[in-house]
Structure formats: structure tokens, C-alpha cells
């Protein structure tokens, strides 16, 4: 027996092509996902240098950030957005890369359609010019965001020059109480370790509460891993994973599938494997979380109050809290459940999957969105939209007063027509509450889909467990 290895060690070892220097390795990339915002300069770089895409068959492209979620049939009106999407379409045609166009039912947010299509498989290395690539770690694949120069590097060579990260394990024990979700676990962890808490590490999530999560829940958790500063999040694949992958269009077919599962079952951390850092959490003690400030680490249980800058010992944090309170228009000491919202956004690569939409439907069925609230639901992909409609969820949403949109990144980052106006306050199922993230001057409170639904009904941040 060799030295016990972590799941990250195993995936890393099986992808090392060569060692360049003491710390720099050439790592093979199995899957490269491409979208319109971070790829034009990379394709241009290839053209200038006369290089080809090494493995178009391992590459996959879709436009999501700039895509409007209303009247898509009319196309994109913003000329810059249109140019970026047209450029992606032209580049994928030129280099022979598979692409789902804006009229294809299978299109959607890149991190939703990867898993949905079976492009995401356990044990793979997956990259994309997008930080939320960490989502795919839910399958036990090593997945992380890269910059545009690295996109070009992967297109040309199917490899990346990487240094190995450290190992961190976050163990979540016990059972999640009713009304508490994967999003709350994510916010609780980030609140605990901070947005730089995972810097330099790959986080493996373990424990009963993680095992009990659906694939959708695991994706939400791994998606938010980047908000803790970690390079990637990982969850060892199990029956839940294999069941999800089986039969998807790009998944291994019968015969090979069994061979793949046999290998995937070896993808877990060995007994006694060394982690550089360990964090533990008790799921049974968690309550729904909300953020009050302008960093995902500004997360607190809904039963709490807005903190005062003087609550922070660190001078930098104190300054950040002061700035955040001013930007967010909040007063220290006010109850979080007294914060009124005028927008609710449900969707994004964090929470735009079918299970998220079902959770929303459960909360709002038979209720109405408060008249002062503008509430939209944006499915993560065309297939999520179709499935939701097959289940009749769209009728529940519309009866309650939600707008039911077409798929895209939407109000998560305001690169398309969906955005907040200055001073607007939004309960959002997305992943970042940075200044201006959802629109210049917009104020974001990150919550789970169930909590967003509750806020839509009451018009203020609300503990979903108390909503009758």
C-alpha cells in the first residue's frame, strides 16, 4: 500500500502529463466548457499564432451571460452583447466546436447544461473561463475557473500549467432540519471561514449531511466554493451520482457505463489521507441564512441582526463593514427579517435547477407575491424550463404573480437586460452580493430558493420555516 491519498490527490495524479519545474505541472484537461464572455480573445490568440483547437470533441460551447430572458425570438438588441454572442458562434464554427445555439432547447447556463447533458463525469478535469466552474465538483470531478489566457492554452494544448493546491476537508455532520438547504450550508461555511478561507486549497465536502444531498444540492454547494476562495470543491461520487449520470446524452453508454462506475467507485479519499485543514459543521444546528453586506462572507442566520462595524476585531473588516452598511442602506442592530425587498430573483448557476424551482413552488403555491415586489424566476436551461412546465410549476409561479422567464444567467450579473436600478433591493438565489453585481447601485441579499420565495410573499427577508 502506498501513502493514503485524498480524492483531489487521486484526480490530480491521474492527470499529470509532465512536470515542468519544482512546482509546475502540465495537467491534462478532459472537458473544456466555453462561453461568450471569456473566449473571444482566446480564439483571436489562436488565429494570430496560427494554432488549432487540439480537441474540439472535448470542448463544448454555449452563450449564457449576455442572453436575454424575454422575447429571445427577437434576438439580442444590445449591439455589444450581440457581437459577443455572434463571435462565439463564428468561432465555434471556424474551429469545429460543438455549440448549442440560442434557439436550441438544450441551451442554458453553462454550469447547468454540462451536468444535464452528461458532459460532466466523475474523475474528470473540467475547466471553463468562469469561476463557478467549481459547480461540477459535485460529481467528483476536479473543476475550476480559468482566465482567458488559460482558455487559449487549453484550446491549443488540452492541458494547463498548474501548481498543486492544498487539501481541505469540510465535514458536515447530522441531518439538515426542514427548510434548511444546501445554499444555507454554503453560506454557513463561507460565513465561518471567510471569502479567503479556502485560498490555495481544494475543498472536499464530506459527512452525512453531504451524502444525503441530491445532485442539485451538491452542485449548489460546490458552486459556492469559489466564494470561500478555494480553487475547487469536490464531493466523492456515490450511487446518487451514478444514478444522475446514467442515460444522459454524453454519458458512457451501456457496457462502458459499468466499466466507468467501477472506476468511479475508487474516487474517494483513503482512510488516513492527510488534509492540510479541517472544518466541521453540525447540520442539525443550521437555520436559513441571508447575507447583509457586500461579500458572501457577510452571512448570518435569518434570526440575527445587522452587525455593527465595532463587532469586528480586525481593522480591515471594520472598514469593510462600514462601507457595506452604507452601500446596503442598512443600520446596525436592525433585525434581518425587517429588511424589505422590492425584487426577488430566482435562478443562476447556483439555484436554477429543477429541484430549486420545485422548492419555490412548494412555498408559494396558493400564495401571492406582494404587490410591492417584482419577482422573476429564470430556469437554468431550456430543458429545466420544459421539465418545470411539464410538472405544471410555471402555472403555480404565474398564479402567484412571478414572471416566468427564458433560460440564461439573467440578474445574477446584469450583463443582459435583467438588472437592478440604483437603490433597488433584491433577495437573490445567486452567488455574489458584491457592489453593483446585479446592477449599478443595486443591493443584493443572497438566500436559498425557499427563502427567496418567502421574501416574495411577505416583501421582506423572512424565515421560511415561519411562513404558514
Amino acid at each position, binding site marked *: 500500500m502506498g501513502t493514503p491519498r485524498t480524492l483531489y490527490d487521486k484526480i490530480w495524479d491521474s492527470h499529470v502529463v509532465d512536470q515542468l519545474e519544482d512546482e509546475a505541472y502540465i495537467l491534462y484537461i478532459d472537458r473544456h466548457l466555453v462561453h461568450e464572455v471569456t473566449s473571444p480573445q482566446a480564439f483571436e490568440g489562436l488565429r494570430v499564432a496560427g494554432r488549432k483547437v487540439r480537441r474540439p470533441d472535448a470542448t463544448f460551447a454555449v452563450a449564457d451571460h449576455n442572453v436575454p430572458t424575454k422575447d429571445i425570438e427577437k434576438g439580442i438588441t444590445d449591439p455589444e452583447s450581440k457581437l459577443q454572442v455572434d463571435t462565439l458562434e463564428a468561432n465555434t464554427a471556424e474551429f469545429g466546436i460543438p455549440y448549442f445555439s440560442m434557439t436550441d432547447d438544450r441551451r442554458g447556463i453553462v454550469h447547468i447544461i454540462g451536468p444535464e447533458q452528461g458532459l460532466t*463525469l466523475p474523475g474528470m478535469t473540467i475547466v471553463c473561463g468562469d469561476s463557478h466552474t467549481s459547480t461540477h465538483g459535485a460529481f467528483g470531478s476536479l473543476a475550476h475557473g480559468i482566465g482567458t489566457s*488559460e482558455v487559449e492554452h487549453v484550446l491549443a494544448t488540452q492541458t494547463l500549467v498548474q501548481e498543486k493546491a492544498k487539501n481541505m476537508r469540510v465535514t458536515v455532520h447530522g441531518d439538515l432540519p426542514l427548510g434548511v438547504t444546501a445554499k444555507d450550508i454554503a453560506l454557513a461555511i463561507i460565513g465561518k471561514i471567510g471569502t*479567503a478561507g479556502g485560498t490555495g486549497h481544494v475543498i472536499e465536502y464530506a459527512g452525512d449531511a453531504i451524502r444525503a444531498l441530491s445532485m442539485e444540492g451538491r452542485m449548489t454547494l460546490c458552486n459556492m466554493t469559489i466564494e470561500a476562495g478555494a480553487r475547487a470543491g469536490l464531493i466523492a461520487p456515490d450511487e446518487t451520482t451514478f444514478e444522475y449520470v446514467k442515460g444522459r446524452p454524453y454519458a458512457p453508454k451501456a457496457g462502458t457505463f459499468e466499466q466507468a462506475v467501477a472506476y468511479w467507485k475508487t474516487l474517494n479519499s483513503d482512510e488516513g489521507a492527510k488534509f492540510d485543514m479541517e472544518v466541521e459543521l453540525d447540520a442539525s444546528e443550521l437555520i436559513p441564512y441571508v447575507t447583509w453586506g457586500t461579500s458572501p462572507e457577510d452571512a448570518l442566520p435569518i434570526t440575527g441582526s445587522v452587525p455593527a462595524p465595532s463587532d469586528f476585531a480586525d481593522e480591515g473588516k471594520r*472598514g469593510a463593514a462600514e462601507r457595506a452598511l452604507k452601500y446596503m442602506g442598512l443600520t446596525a442592530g436592525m433585525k434581518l427579517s425587517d429588511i424589505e425587498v422590492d425584487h426577488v430573483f430566482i435562478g443562476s448557476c447556483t439555484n436554477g435547477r429543477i429541484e430549486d424551482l420545485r422548492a419555490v413552488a412548494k412555498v408559494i403555491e396558493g400564495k401571492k407575491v406582494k404587490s410591492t415586489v417584482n419577482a422573476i424566476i429564470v430556469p437554468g436551461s431550456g430543458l429545466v424550463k420544459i421539465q418545470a412546465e411539464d410538472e405544471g410549476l410555471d402555472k403555480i409561479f404565474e398564479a402567484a404573480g412571478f414572471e416566468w422567464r427564458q433560460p440564461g444567467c439573467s440578474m445574477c450579473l446584469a450583463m443582459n437586460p435583467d438588472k437592478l436600478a440604483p437603490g433597488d433591493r433584491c433577495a437573490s438565489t445567486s452567488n455574489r452580493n458584491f457592489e453593483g453585481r446585479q446592477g*449599478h447601485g443595486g443591493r443584493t441579499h443572497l438566500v436559498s430558493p425557499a427563502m427567496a420565495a418567502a421574501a416574495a410573499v411577505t416583501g421582506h427577508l423572512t424565515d421560511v420555516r415561519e411562513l404558514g
Partner: protein
Amino acid sequence: MEKFNKLTAVAAPMPLVNIDTDMIIPKQYLKTIQRKGLGKNLFAEMRYNDDGTEREEFVLNQPAYRNAEILVAGDNFGCGSSREHAPWALLDFGVRCVISTSFADIFHNNCFRNGILPIEVSPEDLSKLMEDAERGANATISIDLEAQEIRGPDGGVIHFEIDHFNKHCLLTGLDEIGLTMKKEDKVAEYEETRKMQQPWL
């Protein structure tokens, strides 16, 4: 990529923690299909009023710091998205070096691909450099990458760590893709073996 070896320049103080990529370059400027021209949009939300006029209080709008080529910033600089537009905007403005106690992983990588040197220092050294930077145009800071040294205006020297590969890339302005392409045989060999072991990939 432009090489980086030595730099003596004005350093602008930004004592905020968690300066995220949305602050460095807001999303409305990500729609470009070029690498150049983003300097005018660097820190746009903090730098300009709604009518497009400059905010006097923002550090890079102050006469002493308009030509700053070094930023001295609070913990966890560059957190958030993978957008390389962040280093492109810094570079286009003229910033070649950022000093902080820590950097977000993807931003850190992106800097090295663009000839920008991110330097990690201790909290004590950061506050010293922050004080130096606050003295304005009369107090320049010198960086020597080869020697791994920062020299303050009063002659004090701070040694910094950097990994060998990234240092080499910056010093030589290395074409990383070209370097990897020289390993074509190894990549092909790897692909062959993998095809046997994991035919579903």
C-alpha cells in the same frame, strides 16, 4: 507578454479588504472582444460619478496617483470572477504590480499571464508599504523581481517569495502555450494510455 524585471514607480494605497473583480472591472465592460482599452474603465464604479465625471476622493483620480504603476491593497485582492479583464484593465491603466497580504487564486494566475507581478507580504509589511504609498508622488517604491525585493522610499528592504516557474515566466516574458506545445509527444502519449484505460472519455 511584456517582461517584468525591475520597476520604480508611484504606489497607490487602496486599504480596502476583499477588492473583488466586479470592483476592478464592472460587468458592463466585459462585452468587449478585445484585450486592450479597458484602462479607462478600471475601478469604474468607484472612480466615476453617475454622470461620468471623476470622483475627486478616489485615489487614482488624485494628481499624485494618476501615474501609479503599483497598487498597495488590503487582504484577498481580486476575489470573485475569473475575468481576465481585471488584469487587462490594470495593465491598460499602467499598473504592473499589486501588493497585498493575499490574492484570490484565479486572479493571481491571470496576473502572471499578463506581465503583472502580484506580491504577497505580511500584514506588518503591508501596513508599512501602505504608509509609504500614502505619502504620494514623492514616495516611490522599487521592485526587483530577480532579487525578490521591495525597496521603500526610506531605503527599507522587504524580501518576498514567489514560485520559481512564475518568476521565470515574468522575467522572460515566456509564451507558455509554446512551451507546452514542445511537450506534444508527452501529451499524445498520455492521450493514448487514457484511451485504453478510460474509453468513455
